[in-house]
């Protein structure tokens, strides 16, 4: 699904990623952990194609094709999804309108016809139920006046609506209370399957109690310093980042 080879990237002239290697297979969930400033979010943003990030070396293959040459929307249409750490507000654009535009953009890219309005509504209600979101969200402006938890839940809701193949969750758990973590995890788990992959970026082990990863990587100073099974996260919690390096 995703192969990252010797990836180096700069932000504002400063090298943040210093040679990342990572392979994420179809159906796998990998957790990426590491201290602040280690490059976790930079990796997420490079993968989704954000401008202002300059890749200086290395390559990324997504389903065997070079990901770095694709525009952000092309990546999205091919099934790459990023759950943002800080989702932006778009005043006047309802959640429904936003998602309908997104769904239809992706369908258009794939040469499919637009989604039927009633089918879309049905799908929205189904996925909102999954994430225990009130239907009033449908008509609210995107992320405007949402609490931190609501924003994150809305990200996972969008993921559920768009059914991506590769989901990158950038600190989706930060700012969530334990009940919200459970709900969000449930949403993620419902999408797990043999054809979907996840890269879960987090500070805390506790999320991984609910989204159990196949592999855990520790990122430090722009490099993956250690990889292992789900137990590595527990070890990290016990000994700290310094203890596992």
């Amino acid at each position, binding site marked *: 699904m995703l192969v990252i080879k010797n990836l180096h990237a700069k932000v504002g002239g400063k090298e943040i990623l210093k040679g990342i290697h990572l392979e994420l297979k179809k159906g796998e969930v990998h957790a990426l952990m590491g201290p602040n400033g280690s490059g976790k979010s930079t990796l997420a943003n490079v993968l989704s194609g954000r*401008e202002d990030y300059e890749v200086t070396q290395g390559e990324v293959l997504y389903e065997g094709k070079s990901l770095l040459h694709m525009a952000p929307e092309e990546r*999205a*249409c091919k099934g790459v999804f990023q759950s943002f750490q800080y*989702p932006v507000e*778009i005043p006047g654009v309802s959640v429904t309108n936003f998602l309908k535009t997104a769904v239809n*953009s992706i369908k258009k890219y794939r040469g499919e016809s637009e989604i039927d309005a009633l089918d879309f509504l049905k799908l929205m209600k189904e996925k909102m139920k999954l994430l225990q979101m009130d239907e009033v969200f449908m008509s609210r402006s995107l992320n405007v006046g949402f609490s931190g938890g609501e924003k994150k839940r809305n990200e996972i809701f969008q993921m559920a609506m768009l059914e991506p193949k590769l989901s990158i969750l950038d600190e989706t758990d930060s700012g969530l209370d334990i009940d919200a973590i459970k709900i969000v995890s449930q949403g993620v788990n419902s999408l797990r399957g043999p054809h979907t992959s996840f890269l879960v970026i987090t500070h805390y082990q506790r999320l991984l109690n609910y989204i159990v990863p196949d592999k855990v990587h520790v990122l430090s100073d722009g490099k993956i310093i250690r990889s292992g099974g789900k137990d590595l996260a527990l070890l990290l919690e016990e000994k700290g980042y310094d203890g596992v390096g």
Partner: protein
Amino acid sequence: MPQEKNVAIKKITEQEYKYGFETHIESEQAPCGLNEDIIRFISKKKKEPLFLLEWRLKAYRHWLKMEEPTWQHVKYAPIDYQKIIYYSAPKPKKELKSLDEVDPELRSMFQKLGISLDEQKRFSGVAVDAVLDSVSVATTFKKKLKELGIIFCSFSEAVREHPHLIEEYLGCVVPYTDNYFATLNSAVFSDGSFCYIPKGVRCPMELSTYFRINAANTGQFERTLIIAEEGSYVSYLEGCTAPMRDENQLHAAVVELLAKDNAEIKYATVQNWYPGDKEGKGGIYNFVTKRGKCAGKNSKISWTQVETGSAITWKYPSCILKGDNSVGEFYSVALTNNYQQADTGTKMIHIGKNTRSTIISKGIAAGHGQNTYRGLVKIQKGADRAQNYSQCDSLLLGSQCGAHTFPYIESKNKTARVEHEATTSKIRDDQLFYCRQRGMSEEDAVSLIVNGFCKEVFRKLPMEFAVEAQKLLDVSLEGAVG
């Protein structure tokens, strides 16, 4: 701003004008220039009663003493008023009994504009009075309206059929001495619409007029008059597109609305005249005077406008709130792209007690566009407990455009409450990226965000008009605003 985004915004803002075509219909027109003979020619052509000719001449003589205003925040080359043709009409071939008899070329032009003059409109409940170059060509739905006593016809027809109403109400809100362009209009106006809603009648359909400028070098001087008698209600839609032109064309319209006790008038405009090309050449000069008078108690006048066209827009739909408890509203979206300039806003004049007004203005500037909001909220001495709320938001696309806000507030009554809020924002990179990460093209993302910005105004438009307005923003920013 990253280079890529500039390119995308450039691409979407440089879309060619989609309604640029010209039909060939024989015009019967006045010679170039303006003098008393020309005014007599117009009046004679239109077989007008003497009072109207005299009114026109008074206006013309007054106009000669006036000076063109210069206070607005727009720049344009001086207009030579002697080089303008003040009257042009399609030659009437014969009396039209049905729409089938309308000039086929004209009909095909309406088709291109997406204006359906045929029976379909009946099902959507829209009556259309189509104005082509100064003379009304066809009017539908008249019969149904007639049953209710509603008069909805061209201004010329109203002059012929209901001269007493014209004599009574013409200039009652915008006197012929009002301002340079309104006075010019008073002297030379060619046609327009007239609407009269009798006491207690609620007009059951949206009344709709499409204006279109057609012949070259023809200044357009439309005049609209809407009278809502006690307890009546009417919703009026005005939509405009114009064919592509090289020379600048002057358009100076006047719209007067009068609402008596407990009456309500909603007036919505979508204006899409030729804005000029990418270098700013050509385009319509749109100098319009629109004013409504809430003469009666508990009356209400609401202006909604979506202005995307014209090289220059100079327009301040206003409300005089004379009746106690009367309400004035102004909802506006003005978009300027390329070298377009807009100086637009409203005036709310509070005279009666407990009068209320709301102003929501959304200005969007792209390319080298200059977008100015200019508004006046005036509370007169007797306007106890008057209230105004104003909100003026500007959205900038790119770095070479400008947004300006000039809100004037004059309050002579201590019990009045006036609130004003203003914001200026840009479409942020992270907003665009967020949309693109969800699969949208940059164009669609801009469209979505701009549309969201305008939502408060769009929701004030009648449903089918809201869709049209969104399409228009799409076209004006290219695909943007969907």
